[in-house]
């Protein structure tokens, strides 16, 4: 087993395959997390550092961190199908299914579980960046107009400027009749609501 292991280690070094048989009782999974520069820089300040990125095997069985170049490795992994998750604030990573085969240790079998895309080598990239905050709309006239305050103002303007126009356009006869009708029905006018206004009627 030992010489074979060494052989595969050599293979690993030359072609950067992701799975090799380790010197211990299991295999090791080696991979890399790549966070593209520029992604996620808009909007809010990101931690940006790779030091807080965790790589998690099988829902917490093993947790490891990234080296400065983004590489990570899990040692002593039994053969089987495993799940690797990447926890990084600000990015959405798809979990990755990794098959470690006992018979064929050099073979790479990795696929993103979210979109079932196969990976030829274990390089994990975020599917998208995550924006945790709502973006405040910048100040604009339309917003003010559309806001309740704006609508209210608009309504007031209509009342102040358009209503007199309408009243002016009315026939004076009709107007008087309407006013009389109002008075007889006792509908309080705006003026009568105010102090001193009532005394006039």
């Amino acid at each position, binding site marked *: 087993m030992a010489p074979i292991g060494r052989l595969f280690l050599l293979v690993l070094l030359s072609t950067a395959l992701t799975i090799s048989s*380790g*010197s*211990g009782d299991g295999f*090791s999974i080696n991979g890399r997390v790549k966070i593209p520069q520029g992604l996620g820089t808009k909007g*809010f300040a990101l931690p940006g*550092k*790779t*030091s*807080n990125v*965790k790589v*998690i095997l*099988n*829902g*917490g*069985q*093993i*947790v*490891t*961190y*990234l*080296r*400065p170049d983004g590489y990570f*490795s899990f*040692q*002593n992994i*039994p053969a*089987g*199908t*495993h*799940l690797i*998750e990447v*926890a*990084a*604030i600000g990015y*959405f990573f*798809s*979990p990755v*299914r990794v098959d470690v085969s006992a018979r064929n240790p050099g073979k790479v079998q990795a696929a993103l*579980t*979210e979109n079932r895309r196969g990976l030829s080598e274990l390089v994990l990239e975020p599917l998208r960046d*995550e*924006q*945790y*905050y*709502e*973006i*405040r709309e910048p*100040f604009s006239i339309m917003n003010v107009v559309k806001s*309740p*305050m704006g*609508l*209210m103002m608009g*309504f*007031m303007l209509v*009342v*102040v400027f358009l209503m007199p126009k309408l009243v002016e356009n009315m026939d004076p006869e009709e107007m008087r009749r309407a006013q009389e009708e109002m008075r007889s029905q006792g509908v309080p006018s*705006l*003026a009568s609501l*105010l102090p001193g*206004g009532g005394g006039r009627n």
Partner: protein
Amino acid sequence: MAITYAVLLFLIFYSFQPTLSLYEDQVGLTDWHQQYIGKVKQAVFHTHKTGRKRVVVSTEDNVIATLDLRHGEIFWRHVLGHNDVVDGIDIALGKYVITLSSEGRILRAWNLPDGQMVWESSLHGPKHSKSLLLMTNVIIEKDNVVVIFSNGRLHAVSCIDGEVLWNKDFEAESLEVQKVIQPPGSNFVYVVGFAASSQFEMYQINATNGELLKHESEAFSGRFSGEVSLVSSETLVALDSTGLILLRISFHEGKISIQQTPISDLVEDSPGPAVIIPSSIMGLFTIKINAVTIFIRVIGKGKLEVVEKANHETAVGDALSLSEGQQAFALVQHAGRDIHLTVKLAHDWGGDLLKESIKMDQQRGLVHKVFINNYVRTDGSYGFRALIVMEDHSLLLLQQGTIVWSREDGLASIIDVTTSELPVERAGVSVAKVELNLFEWLKGHMLKLKGTLMLATPEDIAAIQYMRLKSSEKSKMTRDHNGFRKLLIALTRAGKLFALHTGDGRIVWSRLLQSLHKSEACQHPIGLNLSPWQVPHHHALDENPSVLVVGRCGPSSDALGILSFIDSYTGKELSSSRLVHSVAQVIPLPYTDSTEQRLHLLIDADKHAHLYPETPEAISIFRREFSNIYWYSVEDENGIIKGYALKSKCNGNVDDKFCFDARELWSIVLPSESEKIIATVTRKMNEAVHTQAKLIAADQDVMYKYVSRNLLFVATVAPKASGEIGSVTPEESWLVVYLIDTVTGCVLHRMTHHGSQGPVEAVFSENWVVYHYFNLRAHRYEMSVIEIYDQSRADNKDVWKLVVGKHNLTSPISSYSRSEVVTKSQSYFFTHSLKAIAVTSTAKGITSKQLLMGTIGDQVLALDKRFLDPRRSVNPTQAEREEGIIPLTDSLPIIPQSYITHNIRVEGLRGIITVAAKLESTTLVFAHGLDLFFTHFAPSRTYDSLTEDFSCALLLITIVALVAAIFVTWLLSQRKELQDKWR
């Protein structure tokens, strides 16, 4: 008229403005986040002249962190996996932190300034052994070398890149290596240990190439006990297995000599076997006999001398090398309310370098560990700072006789949490620290107004932000109308209770429970459970509420129980008692006595039920409800679920009126070869359900929810599949879920998910249960929902029947009635692993629910329950769409804005607790793990209150302006009318 309408309209509009999630400037408004590290195991100082002074610590919660020595803040922190226990830490080359973890299998180096991992190497060995880390000053090809003994193999690893330079096996069957020692100035290491626990073995290894230079062994007539103390680079002190004879083992120049000294020769009236406290102080070691700490000096050729016997609790720190080969060590002794910190030179017991007395908070308990570090004062003498770890897991830095800073790291290990209401505000008593006057209030609102109109200068914005965060309103010590202000009472693993204010997370009081204190009778006390004991409402409002802490003396379930009653407002221990029975289960009953004390039933390991409080009144209440009390037990190792009811008074104990025998009503035995219980979940006791009926608009139908408090959700997996993911193929694994009525033992629903396995996280609410598991076939996580409806009441949908009264809605619902239930279920893919799951709870249960999921990345994600609705279909009809049914998708969406923890990680997340506020729209969410996080969360937005950025001032100003405008126009119209009349 129009104006009032307008104002009303305006208000309505305003309250409907969407507040879907958080804006960045709202962070800290209702949420707070606290970071902890846990109980410190080991600390290494880094206090070079350049750079900031810091201390590197490893803790019992597998955390590696560096702390600022000035303020105690965390510079960086890494939480290793739960089985990646840290064995040792050290600093290499002045820039790397080296950690050995996972029983000596993983060696990592972290960059000291920023915590970036530099390298990681995995060490293997032939057998399991102690793990030792030794920083050497040996240099091989310009590489500094760290020597590690782990798993029966000695490794030399380069500090630069983690490459293993050489290794050497110690395969002798029974060899237990105790120490790896490098004598100063040499380039070889000693590996010493015991073989077959009666033979001392010494290996001398060349540190540059791993070559074995010398191997000697010496037999001893007795047996060695485990621990050793190093008293010089070539002398060890050990005890024999009886603990009565001290063994001084010297291996100078390869010659081993074992010298025996009975302890009774040194200490007259030594009452019992001694324990050695492992240390490595030159010429001095410490033993402990019962509670007495004895310091013994090694003089010259094998002479031992007792220098001091300390009767007080004493903690001894490890040696610190001063210049010119001197060593200093610290010891901390308790004396009443004070602690005495003494720093002594190893070779000169009488000469104290430092003697300080510090007043210590009694609620911190005993000093468990002490680490010292020295600095050179301006006058050239040595100054010392000491880092001490207390019994409550807190960490304190002492310097110049004062506590420079302290960290409440006990909060990293919360066992249970409950909430308590704050006192009601009484007239005339001002409890707020700062009461704002009207002018300041208006000024604040004017500033806010400026903010909304985008007229504010940067200073104004800063002032607004400060005002919002520091609002005295939220941290008052009284009840508020919305029920946002509460006390979170948390029980920690150290046996300490903390009360945290929900407004700002500050500690209102903390108390180390005396009843959970280690004592003769109770060697390993642990807290189990925390529940509200007395919640005064109407007639007992003058009394303070209290909580009940249940604990037991030891980890096994038949250890005797402990009860303690604590005042929620002051933290005073009202009373406590040692029980004469064990505690296996704590059942709060839904009954209270006349002083509003809640009745609790404690089930012991022999299935007897004990009633508390032990008052005649409680008995009489209990008698009335005697036949209505049922409970169940789950024995997960045997796969048996049993249901019980009360039978009679205990037979054996005649005088114990409060003890009752149980009778077994039913039992469900799961086949152990095919099913293993991995999760059980019930509904929350105090959950409010608003309506029992669910209207199905699509076909004008009504479904009745099967809302029973006695439902139990059980998940089992194939025994083979109970391990980790990847250990089993889909064909040989399955997950079975059950819904069981715990009164009758009737299985209401059973479902098998083939090719699936745990871990299962589940939450039960109203008539539905949502659970999360792993689907091996798709190799993705899945979440399923089961909804359960009552079919027997389905006939009641006819309105006429309701009107005439021919319905069975008022008939009591009983578990014994014929149950006709219908279940609906649906499954969806979900991306992440989960650590915890909870559901929002509101005061009346009207607000729609959201699931709160603690993801593997230690964030809390909110997901609308509508996404987990078994009625979802690919193409919902128009009516269904109107009802709010979302078209079916194969996976659940993850919307970044619905992370309620936004860009914060709640490291080591273990639990999520939701508490209803008085305001129906809002639920209070508390997530705990290593970190604590608290926030307000409105599952359907805050429909019943104004949003925080609602500007009162703007409204007032508008109203004033309008009134003025009306007045002016009225005057104008008056004048115009007058003019018209004159014309």
